[in-house]
């Protein structure tokens, strides 16, 4: 009955067709993924590039009615806020991820932590802002860069925790056993071997979290508050690009609208540049043939 399985010409043509159709669909989906990013970027270039000049990067906002001015303080402020956020979010997130994957695996506490992280991931950013406002800003009686950094940091934690966990779980057990078999203490094996082996994925997780909070406005409204002047003091209100864009975009002045577009363009560029930079730095020194 072998004839039944013989491929006829028509059958072959049909298979070629479905093959091409499937490939075509995959390519189409890829285009649909990339298209919005390209569209946004092109539109931002079109709207914002004309307002970009040296002054934008070196000057602080001018009072209403005066032409010119820039967002230097907001760029620096965003940098400080993101640095503070990362300082909190990266170590706590990675630490919790290590706990989930290496120490608490399957335990009740681990399940609780994982559930909490997933819920935290779904908390609206405005709620995060209000929470930090009542926890830090109200007792201190003033807005501050510090409270803004805390809000961003907490928002980074769940993404980093869950990706760290996933990436650690992908490290084969044979690698852990190799380290333990050499008489390496468990904590050392986790940090120097397992985490290191998973590091490309863990870094991707950190960058995702970073890029996500870099554009957050809502959690900063009640915490960092924004500032029209220079300030690098973490106990004072501080300017941030998303806040500045928000304020300028809803203002009635054309000049401010143009600056808002430029600010949005700079924000996206900064995210792209910092992600690329981290990638570059962390993939240097990778050995021939690794993975």
């Amino acid at each position, binding site marked *: 009955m072998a004839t039944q399985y013989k491929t006829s010409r028509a059958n072959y043509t049909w298979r070629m067709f479905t093959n091409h159709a499937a490939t075509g669909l995959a390519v189409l989906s890829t285009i649909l993924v990339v298209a919005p990013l390209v569209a946004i970027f092109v539109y931002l270039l079109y709207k914002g590039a004309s307002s970009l000049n040296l002054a934008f990067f070196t000057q602080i906002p001018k009072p209403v009615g005066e032409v010119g001015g820039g967002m230097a303080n907001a760029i620096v402020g965003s940098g400080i806020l993101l640095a503070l956020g990362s300082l909190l979010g990266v170590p706590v997130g990675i630490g919790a991820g290590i706990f989930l994957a290496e120490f608490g*695996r*399957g335990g009740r506490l681990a399940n609780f932590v994982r559930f909490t992280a997933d819920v935290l991931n779904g908390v609206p950013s405005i709620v995060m802002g209000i929470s930090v406002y009542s926890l830090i800003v109200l007792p201190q009686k003033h807005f501050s860069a510090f409270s803004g950094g805390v809000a961003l940091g907490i928002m980074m934690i769940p993404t980093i925790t869950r990706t760290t966990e996933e990436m650690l779980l992908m490290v*084969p057990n*044979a*690698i852990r*056993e*190799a*380290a*333990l*078999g*050499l*008489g*390496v*203490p468990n904590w*050392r*094996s986790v940090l*120097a*071997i397992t985490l*290191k*082996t998973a*590091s490309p994925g863990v870094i991707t997780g950190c960058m995702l979290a970073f890029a996500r909070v870099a554009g957050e406005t809502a959690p900063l409204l009640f915490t960092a508050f924004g500032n029209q002047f220079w300030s690098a003091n973490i106990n004072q209100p501080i300017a941030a690009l998303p806040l500045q864009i928000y304020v300028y975009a809803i203002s009635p002045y054309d000049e401010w609208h143009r600056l808002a577009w430029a600010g949005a363009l700079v924000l996206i560029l900064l995210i792209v540049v910092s992600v690329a930079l981290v990638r570059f730095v962390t993939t240097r020194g990778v*050995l*021939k*043939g*690794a*993975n």
Partner: protein
Amino acid sequence: MGVGIEVSNLNAWYGSTHTLQDINLHIPANQATALIGPSGCGKSTFVRCLNRMHETNPIGKVTGTVRIGDLNIYSDASPVEIRRRVGMVFQRPNPFPTMSIYDNVASGLRLNGFRNRRMLDEVVERSLKHAALFDEVKDDLKKKSGASLSGGQQQRLCIARALAVDPEVMLMDEPASALDPVSTAKIEDLIFQLKSQYTIVIVTHNMQQAARVAERTGFFLNGRLVELDSTHKIFTNPGDKRTEDYITGRFG
């Protein structure tokens, strides 16, 4: 130098499965002892009890005593100390993928806080030579990842890595089962040379391999040690009917 191993009343469990039952045996110093038996008979679990790797499994449990040299490994020392004295080579080569060849061999010492560069250089070179790998990799020591080597080279790298911490006993859990015949021959040659300095316990599915490398051979069946005697006697005149059935291929 190698040291002898004395096992008495060893029992091991995975959860409620009684994997090893009342194992009593002696493994002499500076010889290779092969453990044979069908899949699931407990021979791998047995070697994992000799460096306390069995208990790294959350559902693993062990009772009984194991003396390695003058050390009772379940009461006199921590698992970490034991594993520095009892090296292990696994079934599948498992070099650290993010590390260079050099770093792989140095890892055991480095991760135990050893930093002296010149000494590390010496140890790495000596271990790689000992594992008969040095000539093949000496130009790429710090350039290539351990994972870029061929399977057989990776396994010799893992042996070099285990040798670098200068153990007294080497446990090998089917070290050649994932390798081609040429690589297998190299590993067997290596075991032959290592015997003069280490006590070797090798688990194998390959009875010819046991006959080639080991002075003594033990036969495991269903979690029990059926017999352990000189390799020659096991393969020519076994004391137990079940051993004879197994080596003549009547089951397993």
